[in-house]
């Protein structure tokens, strides 16, 4: 069995100080989607840049279909496609001209490129916009074009660096469908994402990265099994009450609850049943929750379960920080399923 991508103990430090990768290893089996999941600054993009030959590692080895990304970078480049989180397309060119340029730079014959770009424009719903300069495109259209550009040369291995960050939910689902189709055609994909839901939907295997290290690996089901299938959020009028309620609910869920500000978060396996029990308990004590909901676990919950601490991506959100247990914690942004830690570009 061949692996599409292998990372062996990759290390990279920027400017002698910032350690972006601190010994990252993983393997992506051919024909599968692998998700690198982590918050901003975890080292996901650095790993992608090394594996796509853009950056050299300080130490460690990267292989793409068996070819070394440093020593055989030329060969690796003929095998890969890269779509980045910046939507790296030339906004002065039209959609079609962008694809032509990338096709020609892949040394495909003119007629092959012409055929391929018509195909891709059609597939990505850009046919009508194909002769307009990209600067007139919406964010979602640019992102689709960026991915299309990565596919012009029919790469065997595709790198998608946060392909849906900053996209609206509708465009996100579009991009997911397209990634899914690709793998059906035999392409191997390395996907980086901040969205647990995205990794869950698309990837067969996931590695969770934090501070340049892989802190967990497994299938989405395995990761979530460790966590409880759903999370119950119980909001209370103040932080003191929240702590009391957390004590009260200690043995009700799959794991012990955590308190974030005035909200008690309870990982549960059997949401509705536990929800009833929680409400009954609250009622017995004469407590009325201010909010109450059952949701999918977020990346933040995975991090909480794995590291016992929150991700650090929402540091800016000072207004919602409320001191609890003598140390300051920050309330997560409203956590709908798969909510982002920070959708903005790095």
């Amino acid at each position: 069995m061949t692996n599409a991508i292998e990372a062996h103990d990759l290390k990279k430090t920027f400017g002698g100080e910032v350690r972006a990768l601190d010994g990252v290893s993983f393997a992506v089996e051919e024909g599968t989607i692998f998700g690198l999941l982590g918050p901003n600054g975890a080292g996901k993009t650095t790993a992608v840049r090394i594996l796509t030959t853009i950056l050299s590692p300080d130490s460690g080895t990267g292989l793409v279909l068996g070819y070394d990304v440093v020593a055989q970078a030329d060969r690796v480049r003929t095998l890969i496609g890269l779509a980045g989180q910046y939507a790296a397309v030339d906004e002065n060119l039209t959609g079609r001209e962008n694809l032509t340029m990338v096709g020609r730079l892949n040394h495909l014959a003119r007629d092959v490129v012409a055929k391929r770009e018509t195909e891709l424009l059609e597939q990505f719903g850009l046919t009508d916009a194909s002769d307009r300069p990209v600067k007139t495109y919406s964010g979602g259209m640019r992102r689709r074009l960026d991915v299309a550009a990565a596919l012009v040369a029919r790469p065997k291995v595709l790198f998608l660096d946060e392909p849906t960050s900053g996209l609206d939910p509708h465009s996100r689902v579009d991009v997911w469908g397209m990634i899914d189709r690709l793998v059906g055609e035999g392409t191997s994909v390395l996907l980086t994402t901040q969205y647990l839901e995205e990794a869950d939907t698309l990837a067969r295997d996931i590695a969770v990265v934090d501070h340049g290290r892989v802190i967990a690996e497994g299938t989405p089901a395995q990761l979530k099994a460790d966590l409880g299938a759903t999370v119950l959020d119980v909001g209370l009028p103040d932080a003191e009450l929240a702590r009391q309620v957390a004590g009260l609910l200690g043995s009700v869920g799959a794991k012990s609850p955590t308190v974030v500000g005035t909200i008690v978060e309870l990982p549960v396996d059997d949401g509705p049943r536990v929800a009833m029990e929680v409400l009954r308990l609250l009622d017995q004590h004469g407590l009325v929750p201010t909010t109450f909901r059952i949701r999918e676990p977020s990346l933040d919950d995975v991090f909480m379960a794995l590291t016992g601490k929150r991700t650090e991506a929402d540091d800016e959100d000072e207004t919602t920080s409320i001191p609890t247990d003598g140390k300051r914690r920050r309330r997560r942004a409203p956590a709908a399923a798969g909510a982002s830690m920070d959708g903005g570009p790095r």
Partner: protein
Amino acid sequence: MSTTTAAIPYEAGLARADGPAMPRGVARLRWAVADTLTITKRNLIAYTRIPESLFFSTLQPIMFVLLFRYVFGGAIHPPLGLTYIDFLMAGIFIQSVGFGGIGTAVGLSEDLQKGLIERFRALPMARSAVLAGRTTADLVRNVFVLLLMTGVGALVGFNFPNGAPGFIAACALSLFFAYALLWGFAVIGLAASNSETAQVMAFPILFPLIFASPAFVPLTSMPGWLRWFATNQPIGAVINAMRSLMLGAKYVPGSTSGHVLVALAWCVGLLLVFAPLAVWRYRRIS
């Protein structure tokens, strides 16, 4: 947490030896040329779609010719009874290709900023093509600008005092100089953190070189130290050589071949310094 990492069949560093290879020798050179042309074309298309660069390549040069010819020209008296428009052409050519070079710096830093260079670096294209394509496109743009200015110049009285061969030689020299200068702007574009910085970095270097030169006025009115600088700095040397070629040797003290040699030495020297520097900068982008 279970681990699903597949067995790793390759020894680290001992990678496969088969598979699609990059071409070598002549074929590789052909790739490099094809890639350069692709990038050149891309940049030229972009120039037609960015209003600013369209302005700097068309209207601005025309406006400058007219401005100097009709507004300032009457107050400036070139030596030996030359008309001001005849005197002006060499200077305004260099001014246009020089300031046009800021576009090279800005364009490259934008490519960096927007992640396009990342994409290029992950493509199986010649490493040299991004810089070569950019400078080639700007050379083509400069040819266009010179043709346009020649046309406008001829309309407002420029009458090719030394005939076509001298004029063409002067144009060729200014294009060569502009090309060497473009590599300097490429270095700035690659070093700047964003396009605004690129512009701010390029301008103060260029401005004194262009205006403290014989481009627009005879040197006789300048103080001695400035006159020395204006004559011996690269832009001054190139303008003197161009005038000697396009107006005739009698209008510039010294022999034409002497001026041309000095100017060519500057061009080659700048190219030898800036081109490797730009390539070096490009390679160590991270």
